[in-house]
C-alpha cells in the first residue's frame, strides 16, 4: 500500500499534532483510538493558550476590555458551530460538557414536558450508553416507554423493526446514532427524520462519531436535535454541543439553575432567559469553547469532502488488509460505513490484543465500547476496535496488521 493519491496531505497534517511524534514503549506511536477521543492540533492548543495568556476574563457580565474580548470570542464560536451544522440560527446552539450532557439535557427538559407517561422513546440496538441510559432513566422517573429497534446482521437498522416499533403511534421520539461507534455504520438520517416526522415523532441524532467525518447539515436532515462532543472533533474536552430547532428550544424549561440562565430572580419566582442562555447556567467552559472554535476552523479549512474521502480510503484499506488475517473477524458490514473497525480474534481476548499491540506502540481500544447491549446482540463480550482520524496513515493500518499477526502467533 502506498500513500500516493491520498485525498489529504496527511504528512503535513501530522505535523500539526505534536503528540503523534511521541514514542510509546520505544516504538513510533500509532494512534488508532480517535473514536474514543481525538488528538489536538497545535492550532487548538494555541487558541487555548492565547485566551489564557492574553484575553481572559469571565464572559457576559463584564463591562471591561478582557471580558468583552473573551465574551466575543466565546459567542463567536456559537456562530462557527451554527455554520458547521448549517443551523437556522446561532440561538439554536447550546454549549454543554459533552454529547452525554446534551442528551441528558433533552431527556430532563424536553423529555419531562413534551413527553407524557405512556409516550414512547425509540432507540436502536447499536446505541452508545449515552443514548440509552438517559431514556431508561426517563422511563423509570417519568413513565415513558423505551423501545428498541433491531439491527440486521450486517449492522444496519432493521427497517421492519422500525416500522413495528412505530406502528401503534406511541413513539414520540426517535433517538438514534448517526454513526455507530462499534460497527462504523452510518444511519440514513434524512430518511429516518422523514419517517419520524411522518409518524408524529421528533428525531434526535447522536452525531458524536459522524460529525468527525462528514459534513452535517441539520436543516437538510431536518433533525430536531443533534448532539456531539468537542473532544472527538480535535477540540478540547469539557465542551459539547446541543443543536435543537428554535421552536423546540423555546418551549423547553431550563435544565440547571444559576447565573446567566435567568431573566430575573426573586424569591417567589424567577424568569428564564431566552435560548440558548437558558440552558447555560453558571460560568461556561470559556477556554474550551474557544478551543472548539479553533478545531472547527481547522477541520473546515481541510474540508469535509477531503476528510470524508480520506476516511473512505482508510476504511477500505483496513477492511481489505485486516480481513486477510487468519482467525480475525470484523463486526458489521454495513453498506455505508466509516472509519471504525471492531474485530475479534480466535483464541485471543480483546484485552490481550490491546495490551500486546500497545507494547508495539499501537493504541487500539478493547472492551464493550459503552455499548453493552450491542455486545449481547453481536454475541461477544468485548471487541478490539481501531478508529481513524484525519492524521491516520494507511501505513499505520499496515502496522496494525503486522501487530495482529504477531498476536495471532502468540496465541496460536
Amino acid at each position, binding site marked *: 500500500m502506498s500513500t500516493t493519491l491520498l485525498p489529504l496531505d496527511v504528512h503535513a497534517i501530522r505535523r500539526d499534532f505534536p503528540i503523534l511524534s511521541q514514542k510509546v514503549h520505544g516504538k513510533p506511536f500509532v494512534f488508532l483510538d480517535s473514536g474514543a477521543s481525538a488528538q489536538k492540533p497545535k492550532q487548538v492548543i494555541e487558541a487555548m493558550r492565547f485566551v489564557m495568556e492574553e484575553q481572559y476574563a469571565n464572559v457576559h457580565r463584564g463591562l471591561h476590555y478582557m471580558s468583552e474580548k473573551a465574551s466575543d470570542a466565546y459567542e463567536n464560536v456559537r456562530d462557527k458551530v451554527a455554520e458547521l451544522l448549517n443551523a437556522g440560527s446561532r440561538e439554536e446552539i447550546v454549549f454543554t460538557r459533552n454529547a452525554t450532557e446534551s442528551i441528558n439535557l433533552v431527556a430532563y427538559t424536553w423529555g419531562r414536558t413534551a413527553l407524557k407517561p405512556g409516550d414512547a422513546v425509540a432507540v436502536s440496538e447499536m446505541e452508545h450508553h449515552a443514548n440509552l441510559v438517559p431514556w431508561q432513566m426517563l422511563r423509570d422517573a417519568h413513565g415513558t416507554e423505551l423501545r428498541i429497534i433491531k439491527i440486521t446482521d450486517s449492522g444496519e437498522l432493521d427497517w421492519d423493526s422500525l416500522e413495528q416499533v412505530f406502528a401503534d403511534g406511541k413513539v414520540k421520539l426517535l433517538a438514534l446514532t448517526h454513526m455507530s461507534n462499534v460497527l462504523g455504520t452510518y444511519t440514513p438520517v434524512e430518511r429516518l427524520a422523514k419517517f419520524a416526522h411522518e409518524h408524529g415523532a421528533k428525531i434526535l441524532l447522536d452525531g458524536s462519531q459522524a460529525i468527525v467525518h462528514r459534513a452535517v447539515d441539520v436543516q437538510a436532515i431536518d433533525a430536531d436535535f443533534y448532539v456531539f462532543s468537542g473532544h472527538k472533533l480535535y477540540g478540547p474536552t469539557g465542551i459539547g454541543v446541543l443543536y435543537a430547532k428554535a421552536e423546540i428550544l423555546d418551549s423547553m424549561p431550563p435544565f440547571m439553575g444559576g447565573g446567566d440562565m435567568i431573566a430575573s430572580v426573586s424569591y417567589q419566582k424567577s424568569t428564564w432567559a431566552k435560548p440558548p442562555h437558558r440552558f447555560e447556567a453558571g460560568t461556561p467552559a470559556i477556554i474550551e469553547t474557544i478551543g472548539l472554535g479553533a478545531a472547527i476552523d481547522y477541520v473546515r479549512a481541510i474540508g469535509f469532502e477531503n476528510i470524508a474521502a480520506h476516511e473512505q480510503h482508510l476504511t477500505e484499506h483496513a477492511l481489505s488488509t485486516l480481513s486477510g488475517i487468519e482467525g480475525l473477524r470484523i463486526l458489521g458490514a454495513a453498506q455505508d460505513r466509516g472509519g471504525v473497525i471492531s474485530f475479534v480474534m480466535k483464541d485471543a481476548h480483546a484485552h490481550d490484543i490491546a495490551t500486546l499491540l500497545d507494547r508495539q506502540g499501537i493504541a487500539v481500544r478493547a472492551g464493550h465500547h459503552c455499548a453493552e447491549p450491542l455486545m449481547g446482540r453481536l454475541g461477544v463480550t*468485548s471487541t478490539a476496535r481501531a478508529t481513524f482520524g484525519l492524521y491516520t496513515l494507511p501505513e499505520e493500518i499496515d502496522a496494525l496488521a503486522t501487530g495482529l499477526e504477531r498476536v495471532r502467533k502468540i496465541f496460536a
Partner: protein
Amino acid sequence: MSEALYQSIVLESSRNPRHAGRPDVFKAEGQSENRMCGDKVSVFFNGAELRHEAQGCTILAASAELMCEAATGKTTGEIAILSDKFEHLVKTGQETPELGELNALASIAQYPSRLRCATLPWSALRDAIARAGSTGGPANG
C-alpha cells in the same frame, strides 16, 4: 522482552486449566467482576479443593488457574498470606520464591490497567471464603 507477560506458563494455564469448571458440590461460591471490561470470575471453595470459572482474557484465566493450583490444600490463614504476597508481586513486579509459578504474572506490574485481570480471581476467592465462614462452614484454618 515486551511480551514477557504472555510467556508459556501463562498461555498454558489459560488454555489447559486443571481447576476449571463448576463442581457438583461446594461449600461456597465467590464472585468478582470488572465492570470496565465485563470480565467475570467465580471461585468455588470446598475446604481443601478450589475450582474456578473464568470468563475473560488470558491473564484472568491464567491467574485463576495458577491461584487454584497454589491455594489448594492451604488453610484460610495461609491463603490470606499468599494473597498479600501475590498482590505485592503484581504491583511491584518483584518475584519471591514462595510464590512459585505465580511469579509468571510478575510482569503485569508493567500494565497497570490489566492489574485487575490478575487480582480478580483473588477477590472472588476472598469472597468465597467469607461466605463459607459466614454460613458456618468448617473452612477456618
